[in-house]
C-alpha cells in the first residue's frame, strides 16, 4: 500500500516539476563564470518581478559554440568586443537599440561609438579591463610585466603556469611577443613564429583551465595568464599575488551585454540592458568582479579599495603596450583558430 502512494506522490511531483515556473517573467543570462554580482541579480529580480537564471561559460569560443548549436534557451549573452561583430554577422543578436533606452545617456563618451558596434545598436557595456599575467611572488619574485611568464617561463615557474583558454587574449599576447605589431597581422611568418612559440611553451604549462581567481589565491596556480579584476580578487585573498602588464603587448577588452536573436524573453532582456546602464547598478557590477565599467557617474558608488588598485591603474611606462583587442578579418581569424585548435589538443 505504502509504495503505491509513494509512486503516486512521485508522479505528482514529476508533473508539477515539469510545469512552467510561477514567476511573472523569466530571464536567462549566459555570462562569464564568477562575473555576475548576485546582489545585482536580486535587485533586478525585485525591481521587475522576473526570475533570473545565470549560466556560465569560460571563454568566448565556448559561448559562441553553445549558442550556435541551437536550442540553448538563453536571452542574454556577454561577448567580448572582438567577438561582437562575429555574433552580429552570424545573425545571433537582436537589434535591441540600447541607444534608444532611458539610461543610455549614462554611457561614457569613449564607449558610445565603438568600432565593434557603431552607435550601440546591439550591445551595452558590462565591464572592461586588461589581460596580463598573475604571479605568486612567493614562488617567483622577478619582473611580472612580461609575456615571458607563460611563453618563456623562468625556471621557478616551469611547469607552474596556467594559461586561460581564451583564444583572443592568448593569441594577442603571443603575436606581439614574437614581434608582431598588431593583433590582426596577416604576416604568415609572424603567425608561424607565434604558433611555434606557443607549442614550445605548452610543455611548461601546468594547465589550460579557468577558475583562476580561487586557484591563484589558494596556490593551486603559482602563475597564470589572467584578467586584471580576477587577479585583484585573488590578491585580496592572498597578498602574494601580483598582476603584470606584459610590456611586449597586452590586450584591452570590453565585455558587452547583448540580447540573443532567438531569446524567449526579449522584453525582460531589454529591461536588463537598461537596468545596467544605471550608475549605481554599474557600480554593483564592478564592485563584484573588480573591473572598470563604461558608465559615467558610477565612480562615486564604487568601493574604496578599487580607487588606487594597481590592477586598475596602468603604470605610465606600460600605457603604450596596451591596445584594444579588435576583431580580425576572416582569413586571419581562421589562422588564429587553426593555431588555437592545434594548441588545445
Amino acid at each position: 500500500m505504502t509504495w503505491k502512494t509513494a509512486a503516486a506522490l512521485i508522479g505528482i511531483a514529476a508533473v508539477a516539476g515539469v510545469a512552467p515556473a510561477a514567476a511573472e517573467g523569466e530571464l536567462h543570462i549566459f555570462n562569464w563564470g564568477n562575473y555576475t554580482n548576485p546582489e545585482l541579480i536580486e535587485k533586478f529580480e525585485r525591481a521587475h518581478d522576473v526570475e533570473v537564471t545565470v549560466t556560465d561559460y569560460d571563454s568566448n569560443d565556448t559561448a559562441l559554440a553553445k549558442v550556435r548549436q541551437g536550442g540553448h534557451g538563453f536571452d542574454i549573452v556577454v561577448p567580448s568586443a572582438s567577438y561582437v561583430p562575429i555574433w552580429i554577422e552570424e545573425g545571433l543578436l537582436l537589434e535591441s537599440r540600447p541607444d534608444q533606452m532611458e539610461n543610455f545617456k549614462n554611457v561614457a563618451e569613449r564607449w558610445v561609438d565603438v568600432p565593434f558596434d557603431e552607435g550601440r545598436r546591439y550591445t551595452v557595456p558590462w565591464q572592461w579591463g586588461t589581460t596580463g599575467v598573475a604571479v605568486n611572488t612567493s614562488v617567483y619574485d622577478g619582473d611580472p610585466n612580461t609575456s615571458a611568464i607563460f611563453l618563456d617561463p623562468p625556471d621557478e615557474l616551469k611547469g607552474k603556469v596556467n594559461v586561460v583558454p581564451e583564444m583572443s587574449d592568448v593569441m594577442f599576447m603571443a603575436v606581439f611577443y614574437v614581434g608582431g605589431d598588431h593583433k590582426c597581422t596577416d604576416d604568415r611568418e609572424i603567425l608561424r613564429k607565434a604558433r611555434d612559440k606557443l607549442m614550445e611553451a605548452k610543455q611548461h604549462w601546468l594547465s589550460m583551465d579557468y577558475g583562476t581567481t580561487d586557484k591563484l589565491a589558494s596556490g593551486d596556480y603559482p602563475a597564470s595568464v589572467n584578467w586584471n579584476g580576477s587577479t585583484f580578487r585573488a590578491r585580496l585573498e592572498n597578498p602574494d599575488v601580483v598582476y603584470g602588464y606584459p610590456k611586449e603587448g597586452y590586450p584591452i577588452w570590453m565585455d558587452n551585454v547583448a540580447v540573443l536573436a532567438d531569446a524567449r524573453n526579449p522584453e525582460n532582456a531589454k529591461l536588463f540592458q537598461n537596468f545596467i546602464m544605471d550608475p549605481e547598478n554599474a557600480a554593483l557590477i564592478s564592485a563584484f568582479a573588480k573591473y572598470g565599467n563604461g558608465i559615467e557617474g558610477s565612480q562615486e558608488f564604487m568601493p574604496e579599495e578599487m580607487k588606487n588598485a594597481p590592477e586598475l591603474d596602468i603604470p605610465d611606462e606600460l600605457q603604450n603596450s596596451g591596445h584594444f583587442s579588435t576583431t580580425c578579418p576572416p582569413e586571419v581569424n581562421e589562422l588564429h583558430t587553426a593555431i588555437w585548435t592545434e594548441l588545445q589538443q
Partner: protein
Amino acid sequence: MAETARRRRPFSIRRQPGFATVAALCFVILYLPITVLVVYSFNAGVSIAVWEGFSLRWYAHAWQNDAVQEASIRSLIIAASASVISTVVATMAALATTRTAPFRGATVVYAMINQPLMVPAIVTGVALLIVFSQIRVATGYYGLGYLIIAHTAFCIPFAYLPIRARLENMDLSLERAAADLYATPWLTFRRVTLPLMLPGIMAGAMLAFVISLDEVVITEFVKSSGQDTLPTYMLGQIRRAVSPEINAISTVFLAISVLIVTIFFFFSRRRP
C-alpha cells in the same frame, strides 16, 4: 617443512603472505580521501590547509544557496521520473523476454536493451546533444523532457537486469497452480506473478534511481540553460571555486547514497 616448524599458529590453507596487509591498505585507500572530504566540510575556515575549528557554516551556506536547492530538486524529479518509467518499461520487457522459447530477434532485443551499458557515456552524451539541439530548434520545447527521456533510456538496463534475474529464478509451479484453480492470466499475473517479482522490481527501481541521481556526463551535454542537476552544478563548482561548501554538498550526497545502499543491502539480505 621449515615453514610449519617456524609458525606457532596452525597452518591455514587459506592464508597468503602479505594479502591481509594489502587488503588493509586497499581499505585505507578507499576510505581516506572521502573521510578527508567529510572532515573538512566541518572546517570553520575556508582553506583546506588550516583547520579552524568545528562549524556547520558551510552546510548552512549550501542550504541557503538557491542554485543548490534548484539543482537538487531537479535531480530528484528527474531521478524519480526516470526510475518509475524505466522500471515499468523494463518490467514489461523482462516479462516478454524471459521464460520463453527463443523467438526470432530475441538476442537482438536483449542486445538493444543492454546497449547503454556498453556505450561510453561521452558517446551517448554528444549523440544526444546533436539530436536534441535540432529538436529543440524545430519544436521550441526546452523543458526537462529531454533530460528525463535520456535518463530513462540509460536506466532501462539497470532496472531490467535485476528484474530478469528474479524472474528467471522464480518457480513456475505457483503460477501453474493458479491456472489449475481457473484463474485468468491477468488475475494470475496480478495476484501471483507480480508479488513474487516485487523484490526484483524494487531492486531495479532503486538501482535506476541512484544511477540517475549520480549521472553527470550525459546530463552535462543534454541540459539547456538553467537546467543544472546537482552533479552538473558540482562539476562546475569543482572546476572553478575552492570552497568547503562543495565538501558540505558532497557529504550530504554521500550520506544519501550510503542510506540507500544500506536499505538496499538489508532488503536483499532479508529475502533468501
